[in-house]
């Protein structure tokens, strides 16, 4: 147990430099075009506005001081203010706080879909290795993975809303019903990845000596597969939960745009079209935190699932 706690603490401490690096990269994005002010002003801002921005961010000072200021603001929850038409002056953090729950909701359902579809399908496919059932699952995963999220969204929309009229097209008006299509769009690609991973992991585990050993003890096949093989095979899937969360964060931007789902993703798209860089920056930073957090959670989950990692 002490090992486990020490492992978790170490993982948390190791995440700190990553967070700092993430803030640094997001901060440096301001300079990508040379003039940071150009990124922060809206097309409508006046000369005074620009001067205000210069003062607020201290662009006349050395870059390290600017970064320090950026960090201090960040700790106080100040991500700057929006410069887009309509929301000019609104603080970015309040915009994010308003939209974040929507995105989290979408991601939660999407993750659920992707694992509850991917894991069983992968196991099924591995058990039927090299049969037509396995091959069709593999073709499905190839297509589902190759399918860009936005086009999948459009197709689903066409099918369920335009032709079948069973689910709402966009927005949130339909309540949970409105959530189904975006969540499916989001989850399907990752479900394909999970299926393939689970399948190859199952096949790998099936080759291990301990599986033969367990069979040689006369254990029923369902115990061998569902108790022993699965618990071992799921370990590599757990290691990529962090990456999956990253995938979902990226996917959410597209899916929310397609389905006009008012979350952070849509906020980013709107801000890009509206040249509202402070908001883009803030959103990216928040999403980065979530990705890092997701990886941390994945590491900790893994430590619980695999008794071998706690030693390190």
């Amino acid at each position, binding site marked *: 147990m002490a090992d486990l706690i020490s492992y978790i603490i170490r993982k948390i401490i190791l995440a700190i430099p990553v967070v700092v690096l993430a803030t640094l990269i997001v901060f440096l994005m301001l300079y990508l075009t040379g003039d940071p002010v150009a990124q922060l002003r809206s097309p409508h801002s006046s000369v005074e506005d620009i001067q205000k921005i210069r003062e607020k961010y201290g662009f006349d000072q050395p870059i390290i001081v600017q970064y320090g200021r950026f960090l201090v603001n960040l700790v106080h929850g100040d991500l700057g203010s929006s410069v887009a038409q309509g929301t000019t002056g609104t603080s970015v953090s309040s915009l994010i706080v308003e939209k974040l729950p929507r995105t989290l909701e979408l991601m939660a359902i999407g993750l659920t879909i992707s694992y509850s579809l991917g894991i069983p399908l992968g196991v099924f496919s591995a058990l039927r290795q090299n049969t037509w059932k396995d091959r069709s699952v593999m073709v499905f995963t190839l297509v589902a*993975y190759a399918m860009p999220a936005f*086009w999948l969204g459009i197709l689903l929309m066409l099918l369920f809303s335009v032709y079948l009229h069973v689910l709402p097209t966009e927005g949130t008006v339909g309540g949970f019903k409105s959530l189904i299509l975006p969540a499916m769009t989001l989850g399907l690609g990752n479900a394909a990845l999970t299926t393939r991973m689970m399948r190859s992991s199952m096949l790998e585990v099936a080759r291990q000596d301990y599986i033969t050993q367990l069979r040689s003890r006369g254990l029923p096949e369902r115990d061998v597969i569902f108790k022993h093989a699965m618990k071992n095979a799921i370990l590599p899937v757990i290691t990529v939960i962090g990456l999956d969360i990253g995938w979902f964060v990226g996917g959410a931007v597209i899916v929310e745009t397609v389905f006009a789902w008012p979350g952070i993703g849509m906020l980013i798209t709107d801000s890009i079209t509206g040249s509202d860089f402070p908001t883009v920056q803030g959103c990216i930073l928040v999403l980065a935190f979530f990705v890092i957090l997701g990886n941390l959670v994945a590491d900790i989950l893994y430590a619980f699932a695999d008794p071998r990692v706690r030693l390190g």
Partner: protein
Amino acid sequence: MTRIRGRLSDRLLSWRMLGGARQTFVDIFTRGRKNGMVVTGFTIILVVTLLAVLSPWLPVAKPTALSPDLLQAPSSSHWFGTDQLGRDVFSRVLWGARISLVVATLAIVFSLLIGVVMGLTAGYFGGTVDYVIAGTIDLFWTFPAFLLALAFAAALGPSLTNVIIAISISYWAGFARLMRGQALSVRERLFVEASRALGANNRRIMFTHVLPNCIAPLIVWASVGVADAITIESSLSFLGAGTQPPTPSWGYMLHSGLDALHEAPWISTFPGVVLLITVLGFNLLGDGLRDVLDPRMKGLRL
């Protein structure tokens, strides 16, 4: 003078040792021919590439040419129909392939270069250098490439070059991670230790043993990477952060078809289908090559 020439020939000899990588290409050719996935993937890529390259000389309308036939359904004169401005969708899809392929290939070539240099440097020097580079790699690796590319594209402003730059700086981490992992694991192999026992230095070991042994997984990843890059590029265009109209781009075409989904579904359907097939082609090639090049996976179809 002779001394210099001697050292020069030494160097040449050592570069010739890179020929160890040749074996990879021999493997790809001889074994790949027998692999269904490699053949299918390669055929798809070949057809799409040929159409894209030849599109200016094909007897189709210019992709930007407007016509009075607005929102026409697919017919013999407009195979894929026309869009809201009366432009030929088939022609736009072909020209879009040019953009997609060029952007994706260049972005992956740059990512590959950054990745190999970073990964090899980390593996070569080890210690503090490795610690810093590995940390950076991990950050870029855990962070979704698409979101990163979106952020960079947003910061740089939408343009073709910027999309390539954005994808490159977002995607290199995968290659770097692969390269570093391979460098670290190959370094542990006994033949590297034997080489060290013969007196080989790090530089020699990296270039004659480590790098050639990494070529195979790099090729596999590059193939899958092009597929990813095509998806990212079209997603960026779809969101309006990529190539700007009137440049024909699959992502943008899909987006503009969204408004007319009810009355003219072909506007977004055809670019979508072609996009899917192209991405599928690269993924198939990558998967097939992995089976071909990784003997451990032999016999296992994935």
